[in-house]
């Protein structure tokens, strides 16, 4: 595995791999996300209790799900950056953080919009909303710490350490907040998947939701890949490989 992974410590190799991967994420991502959104927002049947307003689930759940998922991705990048001092991994932290923060913000916003008709309030100090808000703060902390250093290398390393500390804390925060209070329902998807004989969600609603989750993953990953490549080019712009590449692309 190491022989296979090692070349990507070199920015040039990562850049080329990203270039190759980008269309495989971006094109299916846009297609699948569009399908998921149209299916969910227009064709899935209305909920018997919540009527049409439940449809925000097709944005809310995927963004909340990947907000956490991308934090894990950022922590893995941070681990490789701290342990093996790989510079591309340091840049990956910076590429992921804003994308994850925006996903968190989307889930918070849609949660508030959904809460208004359902619970009768924009914001409720409910366990899952609060945990998501804290996750947002963790993302902001990583970005702020990076931005505070003049030397980018030091900033990226410090941000990486903070991301790792955050990842140890996430389960503690999660359970403490749960224990503290809840209005939010339990995750419907886990219930739907773990109880096949009596699913808690109709399949005509579950399928578009799963499609949307996949679409969110692909589009967000495409954004991360784009950001990482920009970062690589920005840092390596004085290197010969980057200059020849830029000259070739701009011709």
């Amino acid at each position, binding site marked *: 595995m190491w022989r296979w992974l090692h070349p990507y410590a070199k920015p040039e190799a990562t850049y080329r791999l990203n270039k190759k991967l980008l269309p495989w994420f971006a094109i299916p991502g846009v297609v699948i996300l569009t399908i998921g959104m149209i299916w969910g927002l227009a064709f899935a049947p209305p909920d018997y209790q919540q009527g049409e307003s439940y449809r925000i689930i097709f944005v809310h759940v995927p963004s909340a799900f990947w907000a956490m998922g991308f934090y894990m991705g950022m922590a893995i990048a941070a681990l490789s950056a701290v342990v093996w001092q790989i510079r591309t991994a340091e840049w990956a932290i910076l590429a992921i953080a804003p994308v994850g923060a925006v996903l968190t913000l989307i889930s918070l916003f849609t949660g508030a919009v959904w809460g208004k008709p359902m619970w009768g309030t924009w914001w409720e100090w409910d366990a899952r909303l609060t945990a998501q808000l804290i996750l947002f703060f963790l993302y902001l902390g990583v970005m*702020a710490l990076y931005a*505070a250093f003049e030397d980018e290398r030091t900033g990226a390393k410090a941000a990486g*350490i903070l991301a790792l500390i955050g990842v140890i804390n996430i389960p503690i925060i999660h359970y403490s907040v749960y224990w503290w209070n809840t209005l939010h329902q339990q995750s419907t998807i886990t219930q739907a998947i773990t109880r096949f004989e009596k699913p808690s969600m109709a399949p005509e609603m579950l399928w578009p939701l799963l499609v949307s989750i996949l679409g969110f993953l692909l589009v967000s990953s495409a954004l991360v890949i784009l950001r990482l490549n920009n970062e690589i080019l920005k840092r390596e712009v004085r290197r010969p490989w980057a200059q020849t590449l830029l000259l070739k692309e701009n011709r």
Partner: protein
Amino acid sequence: MASELSVGSQVRALMRREFRVAMRQRSDLMNPILFLLVVVTLFPLGVGPEPATLARIAPGVIWVSALLSALLGLERLFRDDFSDGALEQMLLMPMAVEWAVLAKIIMHWLLTAVPLLILAPLLALLLNLPKEAWGTLWLSLLLGTPVLSSVGAIGVALTVSLNKGGALLSLLLLPLLIPLLIFATAAVETAATGLSPAGPLALMAAITVLALVLSPYAVHAALRVSVN
């Protein structure tokens, strides 16, 4: 050449040194405590002197103020040592840096938490906390403050080379300290209603042990980034 001293005596020597340095700037130790007292005084003025209201918000107010005042005093952990070069010497010492970090954390805890623990009954009195909860408030402060020192040390180690670390420090640390706040206030509130606060207190103790064991490693990694 490894030194002849055992780890224990090295840690003790470092703690003595920390104590002596701290005693030369006593105002640095006093100011966060005075800040805490003033903030707690502001709440009755802000929300009204109704005893029932004050008793209701007392655990939260005391703990939030303790968090904020801890943030004020944290920079002392590494800031001066960083600017006069003592921190680099500490990293070069022929002993595991984690022990030195732990010595600093323990001394910082003794110097900040002991005054807080002495002051705690006064704060409880000012906010009209029910008598049954006093012991639990005291215990929660005793169990929780080591987390403030050890997690705080990570934050300070990350930001020590920055000139404008203060506001950033709170942004980094406060989200990480939220579980502590939740368990501490839960413990005091259950005690105030006459129930046993053993559950949340045990969780706080667990967090404290976890923080004390893991934070020296994180601080070491962070210091190596900051000192370069």
